[in-house]
């Protein structure tokens, strides 16, 4: 319209209702995305229902809460079977705990170095290296635990067996560290540069900027990184099975062999008759694992969301 003509502008009502190509594509994409999203949820629910239905028989009959969680007697194949998983829980907890003690400071430190101090080629090289580490299959880590760590521990500490909490904790730490580093680095990178600049303009040194401004700002992302690392360690099976010694024990030192929940399922499920009590118990363990991992991931997720709200 020409300037200065002062003619009132009219709107064609038919145009507002027209289903044009862009409108159709938009609706179509909405449907496709909806199906995709829904199917993810359906799968998860389906798996949960399957695991629960296989384990429910045990839960509603032989299951005794105090024995299940309070006893270390895991004798599923004896004539008079007992199902105490305390030692298995202790095994998983001790291995995951040690892994986190080792991996958390290392990962956060590595993330700080990559995000805040390394520059150019060093940074790119480190990121590729970390991603490569994350891609190593767990059976390879288990192999490293068996054939390298095992003799190393025996020799260094003069203990009879090297397949124990220490071995599997170190292996698990190495496995969890790359994921934690990557996520922690993302969290640090998400802190806007204007914050760093503002703080440095005030005369803060690089370390002060990192500790007083960047880390507090990235706090939620860092906690989420750690929780996902815990989830990773908790759910890991093969490497732990190979490196932990797989013997039922309440560990009193890092040189004790232990058995993890996940490893128990992996090792025993193949030898049980489908539908037997032993089979059902293993699925009950599955429910437990599922719930714990679910809670860990949900917490991590909520924490990350918390960051966005602010």
């Amino acid at each position, binding site marked *: 319209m020409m300037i200065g003509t002062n003619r009132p502008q009219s709107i064609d009502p038919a145009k507002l209702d027209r289903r044009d190509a862009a409108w159709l594509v938009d609706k179509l994409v909405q449907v496709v995305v909806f199906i995709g999203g829904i199917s993810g949820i359906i799968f998860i629910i389906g798996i949960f229902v399957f695991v629960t239905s296989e384990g429910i028989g045990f839960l509603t009959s032989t299951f005794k809460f105090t024995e299940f969680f309070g006893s270390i007697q895991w004798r599923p194949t004896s004539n008079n079977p007992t199902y105490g998983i305390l030692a298995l829980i202790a095994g998983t907890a001790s291995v995951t705990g040690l892994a986190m003690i080792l991996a958390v400071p290392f990962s956060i430190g590595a993330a700080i170095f990559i995000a805040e101090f390394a520059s150019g080629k060093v940074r790119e090289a480190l990121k590729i290296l970390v991603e490569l580490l994350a891609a190593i299959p767990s059976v390879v880590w288990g192999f490293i635990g068996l054939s390298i760590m095992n003799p190393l521990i025996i020799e260094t500490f003069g203990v009879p067996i090297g397949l124990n909490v220490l071995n599997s904790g170190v292996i698990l730490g190495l496995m969890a560290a790359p994921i934690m580093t990557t996520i922690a680095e993302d969290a640090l990178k998400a802190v806007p*540069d204007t914050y760093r*600049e*503002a*703080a*440095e303009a*005030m*005369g803060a040194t690089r370390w002060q900027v990192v500790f*007083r401004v960047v880390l507090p700002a990235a706090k939620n992302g860092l906690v989420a990184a750690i929780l996902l690392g815990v989830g990773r360690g908790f759910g890991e099976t093969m490497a732990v099975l190979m490196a932990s010694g797989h013997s039922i024990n309440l560990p009193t030192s890092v040189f004790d062999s232990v058995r993890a929940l996940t490893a128990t399922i992996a090792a025993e499920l193949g030898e049980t008759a489908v539908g037997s009590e032993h089979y059902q118990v293993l699925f009950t363990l599955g429910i437990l694992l599922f719930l714990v991992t679910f809670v860990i991931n949900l917490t991590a997720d909520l924490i990350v969301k918390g960051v966005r709200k602010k």
Partner: protein
Amino acid sequence: MVGATESPNQATKLEVRDLSIYYGDQPALQNINLTVREHEIFGIIGPANSGKTSFLRVLNRMEMFVPSMKVKGQILFGGRDISKWRNVYALRRLIGVVFPLPVGLPLSIYDNVSLSPRLAGIRKRADLDIIVEKCLRRAALWDEVKDRLNSLGSLLSGGQQQRLTIARALSQNPQLLLLDEFSIAVDPVTTMRIEDVLKELKKEITIILVTNLVQQARRLADRTAFFLSGRCVEIGETEQMFSGKTEDPQTQAYLEGRFG
């Protein structure tokens, strides 16, 4: 206003000699020579892209953040060449900066203002409380936030965040305060209150005020420099400049708003 601060032969706080700034090969500022006196408000006006922000940036050596930025010439702060100052952090602590777009750090309001004193080694809560209140009052923010000092600074409104950054700059107890278009996000009433504070402040410190509002320069600046396309066209007493006695017709044109 304190009479002594107006005398022309007062001490020099900042001296800039043959300063040129480049981004890569592109010059942003060329051959700037000027001095800023102690206890004055030195105004810098000029159209967009004239190099005002670039100038402020190099004064506390923030050019390090832009790898392509190169600086030639000398900047003497308190008589010392700042490029020979080994501890840049110590230099920056003497110079407070307020950016055009407010950067409320993602910390509580209290921590935003107490960060700098903490970095400088002040630990006692009581001392920090006093500094925080004083700086927030000066930035005309205290009354609005005194009941929620522990909530996040980045949740404040744009104008409040800008005043928070002013409070933060003041918390450094700086000798030189650099203000880059501070009123861009602040409402007119608050702007006036902050301007009053600046007039008070210059009894204690030196202020360089970059502004897009020529009337703000007129109200506040003792002397004013006019930057245009990377050159300093003119520096003069603000009163003279605004009473029509400009040396360069371009300055006159800009002041009257007849300018691209």
